[in-house]
């Protein structure tokens, strides 16, 4: 009994040390600052601010539009990344000639730094020199150039396109790895029971990779929600704030005034929302019902 209780912690110890050691202080510091009046430009006026930082955030007039943008941005991006990644993984599951080379190429978008992806897609979608406009014109699909980044509604989609492009390989690799880990016996057993391909997909494939799917979607949602880099690089939230999401808009605001108190409050607020989301998501997908061998 004693031994068994210790074992998992022995396995966990390195992760605990890393996480609590280096994330503990930043996290505590962030929560502390969220309730502090802490503006870099006023180093002599640091005091407990109660909920003032939070009030400042929630009273922004553009909040609702930007909240809507955020939801749109996260849902569409994660959905596209997941569906396309799943299709790619399923297609790659069975061997074919040159699969190694194909895979080496098709996963490449993952190996680009965010800023290069942002700049490239901004160029591709450029309203004057962009190849997309040029090709559409040449194919006679449009008669005049479209200002993708200059049109409200469209500009957010250029960012979604870039993020989706960069994110497909992540889902594909994770799902592919999960697919490959499914022991063959399970398929053989299903075959003996007389199941067809669809049955096998439903009763073997999906249940087996479900934990991976749940976790990748969960974490992607968190990352996409927090992702502001591409928006800064590509549209800077323009035109007229229509391509801002909560994290890009709020952090731009807090950072351009160097109000670290408000920036921290924002971080805490996001964490609160995301924890809620995680709890609900895990409950719905019944993720945490792990088996216990031993």
């Amino acid at each position: 009994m004693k031994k068994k209780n210790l074992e998992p912690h022995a396995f966990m110890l390195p992760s605990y040390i890393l996480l609590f050691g280096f994330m503990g202080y930043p996290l505590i510091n962030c929560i502390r600052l969220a309730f502090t009046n802490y503006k870099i430009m006023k180093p002599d006026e640091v005091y407990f601010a109660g909920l003032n930082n939070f009030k400042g955030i929630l009273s922004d007039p553009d909040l609702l539009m930007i909240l809507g943008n955020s939801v749109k941005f996260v849902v569409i991006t994660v959905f596209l990344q997941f569906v396309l990644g799943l299709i790619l993984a399923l297609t790659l599951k069975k061997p074919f000639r040159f699969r190694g080379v194909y895979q080496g190429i098709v996963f490449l978008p993952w190996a680009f730094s965010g800023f290069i992806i942002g700049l490239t897609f901004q160029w591709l979608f450029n309203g004057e020199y962009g190849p997309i406009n040029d090709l559409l014109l040449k194919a006679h699909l449009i008669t005049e150039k479209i200002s993708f980044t200059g049109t409200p509604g469209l500009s957010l989609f250029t960012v979604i396109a870039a993020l989706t492009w960069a994110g497909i390989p992540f889902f594909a690799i994770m799902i592919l790895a999960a697919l490959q880990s499914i022991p063959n016996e399970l398929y053989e057993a299903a075959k003996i029971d007389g199941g067809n391909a669809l049955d096998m997909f439903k009763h073997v494939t999906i249940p087996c990779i479900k934990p991976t799917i749940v976790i990748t979607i969960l974490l992607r949602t968190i990352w996409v929600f927090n992702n502001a880099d591409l928006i800064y690089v590509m549209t800077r939230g323009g035109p007229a704030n229509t391509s801002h999401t909560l994290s890009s808009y709020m952090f731009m605001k807090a950072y351009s005034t160097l109000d670290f108190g408000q920036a921290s409050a924002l971080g805490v607020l996001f964490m609160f929302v995301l924890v809620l989301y995680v709890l609900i998501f895990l409950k719905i997908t019944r993720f945490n019902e792990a088996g216990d061998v031993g």
Partner: protein
Amino acid sequence: MKRKSFLIAVALVVAVGLAFTGCSSKGGDSKKAGQEGASKSTESTGAKDSGKQVELRFMDVIPNPDRDAKFQEVIERFNKENPGIKVTLETVPWDQAHQKLVTLGSASSMPDVFVMHQQWNSEFINAKWVVKLDDYLEKFEHKDDFIPYVSSVLMDYDHKQTYGGIYGIPDGLTTHGMFVRTDWVKEIGMELKDLETWDGIFEAAAKMTDPSKNRYGFSYRGGRAGGEQLGMYVYSELGGHLYDKDGNCLLNTPEGIEAFKRYTDLYKKGYAPKDSINWGYAEMVQGFTSGLTGILNQTTEVVAECNKTMDKDTWTVLPFPRGKDGKIYSKADSFYLSIAANSKNPDEAWKLIGYMVKPEVNREICKVNLYIPVMKGAENDPDFTEGPMSGFLRSMNDPGFVRNPYYGYFPEVGEFTESFQDSEIQKYLLGKQSIEETVKNISDYLTKYQQKFMKENPQVPIPDCVAIN
């Protein structure tokens, strides 16, 4: 059971321990980070006495290969001339420079000497991250060699009167000029000198535009900090004033609204590409160099970009256009060389700054970076009096040259220039709100924060234009 809680306890102790050391280090450092350079000099002599070489970090924030090479060369010379000091060059890309310096500043780990952008002045000075240089400057052998604009506007007005001291030494001026396509000007039957007034600019922009040939008159900047470009025209209509003596913003007047309208018409009437509503620096320059637009309002550094991609006889730089009163409402900014408050060797740091702004060294650096030197002597140097650079120099030396006011020194200025102003103007360009509403929102924003700031800081002058020549 016991062991389990023991392990948890260990993890917690580690976490709390780190949290504690982190906290105390922060407290200690901020106390150490004194504002006065003088108070530190004892420490630095200590370092010298021990016979040890003093190591200095110098950080540049707008790196490019030519610039890096020049700085490297100058630093190596400096190191050779000062055997007790070893300076190393560090660079951080412009896009990340501000965030990095803010992080380093909050952690009291700034490089000893760094290049500070004018927009960061109020942040870094108020945060007490940079050292006051007045005492050093007093003893500086070249203190009387600065050109009048640098000493009276950039150092005296912008620093001394505003912040009570000089916190950085300008290292090279950049001012605005109009980059124009000389061949297009000829085609529309105008003379280059017609484009030296705003009326001429508007006329030429309209005439040059021919969307069927993929030609637009003006490189409009609707994206990041585009409001500043618009402001340059608006000031020429408002005589260079932004606030009245009570801090009420003057933009929301019939003349102000009219100026806003005339400038934004460049976009609204299609004299600029549709995409330009979201253009920033790089895109507006690219618009001009690629032959999409005919007129570009930009600064000296852009000459290098045009040299690289355009045919020599198709473009030139004209002095910044005059307003209806005949004056040139423009600005000439510089980066500042500053010493970090957390530097352990401010005396040696000053030595480096002094070396870099020495007239001959400064001119050498400015030639590479395409800046106008801060020290006297450029007026006799053909590198500055001939070719594209001469347009800028003519602007700056014009008797009618007026330096436009800043928006203010309140903390919200960053938000105003980086996002608020542009998104308000974009709303108008998209037809989402009227010009009256737009100007009112902008004007109210400035009035609100300026008046609040004035109440708290009555000693700081109200932002206004400065005429010096």
